[in-house]
């Protein structure tokens, strides 16, 4: 592959806590295990966590800061994942970097990374301020993560507006922490509700899954060890769709469910 064909994908959400970093970690591992040379860049300099979710926090020697300052080579700063050598992390530098970091700095870092990888995932910070703008400046395409909640969807909409003005293209949506039962009983915004409102193609649908918490506790992304939990399967499918493969999306309202949910579903059909 020529360096210019390296994809740069921003992972962003606007709202915090919707699963940006978890998606970056799991998608990174999934892509790497599917043979894609993947770099993950922690662009959340204020509150970095990608190292922790990947279980690489103890192996950081240099960061993006030293790379920019020229005090180390890129290869010295990139932390290669032991079990998944196709994946490497460039850790975020000191939070004080926020005071001087410019969009051009992020572009410079990404240009340095690109020749060595097929794809660069950029984990953006929450919010729409400087940190996000810096991260967005270095990306050609984007994945917007949201949950089926009004505040998350509203914030995602703001971010999509900003990405549109930057001509980031394509922008795809990952709907995270879906609760099928609640969706079936229409007590949670439906998949088409969210995709209609945000007008984005759906790249993935991730069900709420307790195993995600277990895996972050251990610093081993779910996609790392062949887990068959719902979220692990969803993240792997996101990775496949990102590479252009057609993988059908599940229908949350048609999941196996108990009698109560079935009754609720019946109530939705207008029989009165």
């Amino acid at each position, binding site marked *: 592959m020529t360096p210019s064909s390296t994809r740069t994908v921003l992972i962003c959400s606007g709202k915090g806590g919707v699963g940006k970093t978890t998606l970056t970690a799991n998608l990174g591992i999934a892509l790497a295990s599917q043979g894609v040379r993947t770099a993950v860049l922690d662009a959340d300099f204020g509150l970095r966590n990608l190292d922790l979710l990947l279980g690489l926090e103890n192996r950081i020697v240099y960061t993006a800061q030293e790379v920019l300052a020229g005090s180390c080579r890129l290869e010295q700063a990139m932390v290669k994942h032991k079990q998944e050598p196709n994946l490497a992390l460039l850790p975020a530098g000191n939070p004080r970097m926020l005071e001087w970091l410019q969009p051009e700095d992020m572009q410079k870092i990404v240009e340095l990374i690109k020749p060595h990888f097929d794809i660069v995932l950029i984990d953006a910070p929450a919010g729409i301020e400087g940190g996000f703008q810096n991260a967005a400046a270095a990306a050609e395409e984007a994945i917007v993560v949201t949950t089926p*909640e*009004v505040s998350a*969807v*509203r914030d995602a*909409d*703001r971010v*999509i*507006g900003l990405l549109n003005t930057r001509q980031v293209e394509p922008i795809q949506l990952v709907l995270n922490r879906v609760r099928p039962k609640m*969706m079936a*009983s*229409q*007590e*949670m*915004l*439906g998949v088409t*509700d969210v995709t*209609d*409102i*945000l*007008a984005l193609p759906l790249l993935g649908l991730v069900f709420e899954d307790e195993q995600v918490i277990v895996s972050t506790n251990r610093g081993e992304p779910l996609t790392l060890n062949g887990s068959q939990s719902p979220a692990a399967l969803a993240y792997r499918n996101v990775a496949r769709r990102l590479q252009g493969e057609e993988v059908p999306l599940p229908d949350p309202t048609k999941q196996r469910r108990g009698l109560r949910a079935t009754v*609720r579903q019946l*109530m*939705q059909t207008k029989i*009165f």
Partner: protein
Amino acid sequence: MPLRDLIDRLLGRQQASATTAKHRLQLVLAHDRSDLNPELMEQMRREILEVVNRYVELDLDGGAVSLETEERTTALVANLPIRRVRDGAPMPASEASSSEIKPVQEAPVS
């Protein structure tokens, strides 16, 4: 879902919260995206009503001018129930506005 909500839903007294969420989002996003402040919206609403009121008599209580959004396109939607069509020539602008249209709040004098 608590039993009371369930009964309310069965009797059609309350809509599903997802439907409420969608409607609220559509409304708030129309405003977010258009970046029109409430004062401008109110001024525009008043002027639109003024113009239309010169030609037809409106039911001013039932009228609404709002922003709606679909597929990331925002539209200004005016819903103006007509009481009756005015006979003959349209009313002059000044008369119509002074007699019928009352601002919701006093506009600042510029």
